[in-house]
């Protein structure tokens, strides 16, 4: 019998790994994957709470998060493609046009 705590702790760990990865990696695609990782940890949290509280709302939230994440990936990848089409070796640090 696994308590919800374990799932939640697992989700927290996944989230922090994703956060650190986002800050450390320079390749835009890998950064994006870290974002997906964080989203997944959130999904896990939702499902866990939905299960514990016997509320279908948790799963509904995950459903919508999934949809929005998919749409977000589409747009994000389109942007990345548009930027990196000309310079395949570009990293996130090169895109500093907004420097003040």
């Amino acid at each position, binding site marked *: 019998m696994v308590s919800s705590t374990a799932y939640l702790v697992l989700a927290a760990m996944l989230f922090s790994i994703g956060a650190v990865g986002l*800050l450390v990696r*320079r390749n835009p695609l890998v950064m994006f994957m870290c974002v997906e990782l964080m989203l997944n940890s959130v999904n896990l949290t939702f499902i866990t709470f939905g299960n514990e509280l016997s509320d279908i709302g948790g799963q509904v939230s995950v459903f919508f998060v999934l949809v929005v994440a998919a749409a977000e990936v589409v747009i994000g990848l389109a942007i990345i493609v548009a930027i990196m089409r000309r310079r395949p070796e570009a990293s*996130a640090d090169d*895109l*500093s046009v*907004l*420097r*003040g």
Partner: protein
Amino acid sequence: MEQLADLMWLVPLLPLLGFLFLVTVGRRLGEPAAGWIATLAMAGSFGAAVLVFVGLMARDEADRFAQLTLFDWVPAGDLNVSMGFLADPLSATMILFITGIATLIHLYSIGYMHGDPNFSKFFVYLNLFAFSMLMLVLGDNLLLTFLGWEGVGACSYFLISFWFSDEANASAGKKAFITNRVGDFGFLLATFLCFLVFGSITYGEMFSAPAGSMATVTASAVVLLLLVGAAGKSAQFPLYLWLPDAMAGPTPVSALIHAATMVTSGVYLLTRMNPIIDLAHDWVPDVIAWVGLFTALFAATIAVAQNDIKKVLAYSTVSQLGFMFVAVGSGLYVAAIFHMITHAFFKALLFLGSGSVIHGMDDDQDMRNYGGLARLMPITAGTFIIGWLAISGIPPFSGFWSKDEVLLGAFNNNRVLWLLLLLAALLTAFYMSRLVYLTFFGPRRWAADDHGDHAAAPTDADGADADSSSTDEAAELVLPHRHPHESPWTMWLPLVVLASLAAVAGLLNLPFSSDTKFLEHWLEPSLFGNEVHVTVSSGGKWILAIIAIVGAFLGVIMARVRYGDRRAAEYVDESPLLARGWGYDSAVSAFMGGPGRSLFNSFSRFDGSVVDGIVNVVPRLVHRFGGVLRRAQTGLVRSYAVGILAGAVALLAYFASRTTF
């Protein structure tokens, strides 16, 4: 009938319309249409002024205050100034002679400015000037008067530097404007004080304030500050030095502005504010009187030594204004206004006459090249002689009556004052006679065109010599060529009108009995009983009058003796000290150019470094702070991600502090 006085708004409106019309299409209309339109505008204004006068006359004496408010001009908190006009006896008198003389001078200018490339511009400025002067006089509050005050100052600048391509003319205009500004400073401070005490600057409200609302000290301060302003505008010592230089402008300008209208604004202002003068210390009017006296004497001595015909008249104006200030300071406002009116007539006449002479002598203004012009310019000479007699104080011309009133007031005030003023009157007669003899009589110091270079033969002093072909072996001078001629009708008609006015204007206020003192009764409502009553017996008045007449004749005879038949060869320049105006003007210039300039430079440096420095402290701090903050904008996504995550951690930490574990 009584409602006619409400037409006062027409009086300044017509010159304003003339100005606006000419400013847009004047150039295209050109000569002489532009001149006639301006003259007609002024004539219409004069007609309106007559109607206002008639309307006021038709009212009862106690009711002669017509007030008209057009709209709220400055509604600013406690200060509420409206665009309002006040037609009372004083302003009605002023607008009558201002518009009348202005119309005549507009007519004169059509002939005088003939051939000038900027003909229409001249009339644009003249109409604008007339509008400003009328606003000055008709305004019912200090701010509106100040509007007109500044307006006439600006127009004076425009008109003095009308021929600005000659740098001397441009400098003269600047000098006039800047000297006036010094005076305006005093006017403004006085206005502020009045507002501070009364809470309003409308004449009606100020003068009907409860007694004791203005302390004596404040009233004295106000009057002295107004005196500064009046001294600037009416060319009293020490701010008179712009007036002689202002002769650089065309002669009609000198006649209108610097004889009849603008320079009288100071006297008008002091007369208008007579209730405040009444509230001041007793010695304050004495200050006014002595300033006037000093100026009168000072300028008269300088006028004796001038060779430029217009400069003589300029100093004469300064001197006569001094007379008016003496009258104001002695409490005889009626005498001051009386003298203002007669002076306007004969001084304008003298200036226009001199313009006619200058016009006929090919723009030569040096009297040393004149002589014997009476036969050749009969109308000019005849009218000029009437003006001369008036200013010298020879009865029965108007100048005698008004000057006598002023002398009476001086006598009533202080014997020494009277004596010195008498001396000034004597000098007036002297230098004016000198001018007339040198110009119209005596030997010609110029050569007619059809004769060679010959010295003129000595002749009788009373007639010009028609025979100028005789030679004098002793003189081998080269004389300038001239062909003097009489001026066109547009120029001598105003002269004739003014001469007749100068002759009969004495009827306004004959001193013989109370019934003939028309002007005094007329002006009573505006003076609120502040007119000083002269405590001289009627026998004493006769004696004073006779002394004045004797003095005038003495001046004329002395001049005749000295200058009657001056030949060119015997001409001696007068004292150079007097000719240079006692060195006052050059002293002021030296001060302003030397220590004055370094003082002003230090002011501007202070302003640039200290004042601007203080103001710039805040922007500099902001700039520096912004520069520091700027470093956070790296443009790098990962740095921003750090920021986001840090914020999220902070939120979590906050919530963690709220839960109990």
